[in-house]
């Protein structure tokens, strides 16, 4: 028997981003003793370098698209789009982390290494074409996220966040794995393309088992994207986790989980679309409603953003419900827009909350417009985009999603979604009223110097949000071209 170790040069090139991120993550920990004393900023610089190299790798891999490792991975436009997105999210997380970690005196190489590993796991999820790879990528991403959520170990709330996230996350993973097992038992394969072929063939297996498998996977992934009714962990985790980490959790793992969601449900379970449609339909409606109405009552900004992120997960599920290429493209566009505006909003909160994250309440933002006009202006851009006001990325995100829903004749879902957006406008505007029309409080007075890294952390998401709002076609074309490839 000829010795053949499966991996060819093409395979490795298609796996390049993950290789770069893993190697750099390991290298960071090895360099720790050398760099720690002298230059703790070096970890951040190296991580950003790794992510830029990873983006380069992903784009290079896209020049020769196809499957790798015997169909386990697939590099197509869809995979590349999400790989680049999660790596951009990584960069936008590291930029505010410089100042944050320095304030908390908690600069270590492990923070950055875990972040890189987590992103590597998300890249795997984006490019996975096999449920085993999906599972391992999901776990790499999740376990790093659990640790990052509890990174500030002296903080009680950070501990609580990590523990809750870990317990509920493991529970959800078990559901997902159960679904994978039943799929394998029924169809005899875990390759997404092969599952699709088996399900659309003449002698398709009993639909009961495969629907059960789809439902179990829906529970697992629903947890990861914090869709109702699996959303209970999100507010506590986002509130307790260090703010840059909360921003990361709300954008990176969520985008990757949605990528997997779209790929599994549209590729593998596409032929039984009518069977899982009600499930996603209800989860979408429930997420929007629960998220928006609960956000109305929050006084803590991070908690409010957590509930708003649940609502936004609902909007993306609407796009999934559409089951069309337009819907997929809309979801892809929305996730990019959402990543920019949400990370930006969290960055502002991170700055205002100050040392030890004392000032997290909406009242603490009072008078920010007078004391720190730049910061307030940035916050305004992000919040307006979260509402979905024209000229921001959020507007076109919502517009395309509801357009896709209408094209698929989901009129009621679109109407209820739009009503929900109106509710959402209230709690975002409440913050803006607080920022511009109230007397400055104690928190707005404490002005910490803005580091160059933090300036970038605000300006880049703001530019991204405006760019997507003014020139949406560029990204949308990109998404639209890749969306057709998902099947």
């Amino acid at each position, binding site marked *: *028997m000829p010795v*053949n*170790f*499966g*991996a060819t040069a093409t395979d490795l090139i298609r*796996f390049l981003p*993950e290789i770069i991120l*893993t190697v750099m993550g*390991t290298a960071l*920990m090895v360099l720790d003793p050398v760099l720690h004393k002298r230059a703790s900023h070096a970890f951040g610089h190296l991580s950003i370098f790794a992510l830029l190299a990873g983006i380069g790798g992903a784009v290079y891999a896209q020049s020769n698209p196809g499957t*790798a*490792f*015997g169909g*386990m*991975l697939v590099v197509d436009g869809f995979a590349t789009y999400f790989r680049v997105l999660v790596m951009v999210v990584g960069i936008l997380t590291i930029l505010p982390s410089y100042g944050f970690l320095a304030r908390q005196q*908690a600069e*270590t190489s*492990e923070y950055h*290494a*875990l972040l890189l*590993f*987590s992103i*590597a*796991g998300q890249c*795997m999820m984006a490019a996975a074409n*096999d449920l*085993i*790879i999906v599972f*391992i*990528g999901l*776990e*790499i991403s999740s*376990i*790093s996220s*659990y*640790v990052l959520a*509890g*990174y*500030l*170990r002296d903080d009680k709330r950070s501990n609580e966040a*990590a523990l809750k996230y870990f317990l509920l996350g493991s529970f959800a993973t078990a559901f997902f794995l159960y679904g994978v097992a039943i799929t394998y*038992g*029924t*169809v*005899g*394969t875990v390759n997404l393309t*092969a599952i699709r072929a*088996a399900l659309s*063939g003449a*002698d*398709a*297996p*009993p639909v009961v*088992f495969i629907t059960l498998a789809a439902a179990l996977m829906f529970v697992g992934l629903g947890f990861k994207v914090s869709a109702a009714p699996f959303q209970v962990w999100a507010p506590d985790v986002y509130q307790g986790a260090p703010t840059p980490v909360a921003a990361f959790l709300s954008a990176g793992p969520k985008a990757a989980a949605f990528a997997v969601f779209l790929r599994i449900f549209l590729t593998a379970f596409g032929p039984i679309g009518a069977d899982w449609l009600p499930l996603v339909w209800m989860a979408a409606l429930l997420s929007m409603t629960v998220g928006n109405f609960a956000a109305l009552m929050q006084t803590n900004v991070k908690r409010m953003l957590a509930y708003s992120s649940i609502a936004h997960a609902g909007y993306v599920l609407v796009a999934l419900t559409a089951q069309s290429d337009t819907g997929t493209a809309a979801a892809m566009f929305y996730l990019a827009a959402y990543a920019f505006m949400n990370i930006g909003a969290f960055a502002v909160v991170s700055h205002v909350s100050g040392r030890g994250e004392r000032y997290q309440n909406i009242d603490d933002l009072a008078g920010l417009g007078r004391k720190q006009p730049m910061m307030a202006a940035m916050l305004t851009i992000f919040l307006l985009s979260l509402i979905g006001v024209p000229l921001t990325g959020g507007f076109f995100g919502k517009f395309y999603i509801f357009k896709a829903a209408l094209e698929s004749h989901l009129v009621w879902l679109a109407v209820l979604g739009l009503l929900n957006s109106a509710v959402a406008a209230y709690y975002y505007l409440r913050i803006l009223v607080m920022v511009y029309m109230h007397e400055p409080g104690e928190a707005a007075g404490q002005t910490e110097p803005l580091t160059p890294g933090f300036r970038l952390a605000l300006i880049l998401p703001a530019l991204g949000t405006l760019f997507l709002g003014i020139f949406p076609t560029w990204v949308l074309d990109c998404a639209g071209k890749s969306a057709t490839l998902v099947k």
Partner: protein
Amino acid sequence: MLIDTIFFYVFALLTLGGGLLTITRRNAVHSALSLIVSLLGVAGLYLMQQAEFLFAVQIVLYVGGIMVLFLFVIMLVNLDLSAKERQFNGQWMVALVAVAAVGAEISWFLYRGQGAFQLADTAGAPSAAAFAVTTTGNTEILADVLFQEYLLPFEIASILLLVAVVGAVVMAKKRI
């Protein structure tokens, strides 16, 4: 075949007896040692099924590695306190129901025989032929599958383990 049957009963007895002792001993070290006996019995059963690889893994990993870890943990916890506590807790009703359910399930499959496992023979599931005894040992077949077809999952699982180790260290360090 008589000798096979005798070996089967010996190993089965080791497995069950060890398991029973594991859950009934008050002293945690005794429990751990009984568990080793039970695991060795399972290893013997694997060998009788011509699963040499599983046999070796069972001995090296479970009997060797994991049991050492168990004993380390037992060393670190306070044994005197737990030895005095009641051994059976108030959940026994639930446990009884669970045992009855699993028992019923197993009996059902035994009753149905091989046919119970033919869920999807039409859809490209490994057919009976795939399970036919080949001249190649199953260790080699396993190695082929692991290092060729499933090379990528095998490798990235190591990243998963690395992340778990780093995470555990970060969580357990005295100060960040």
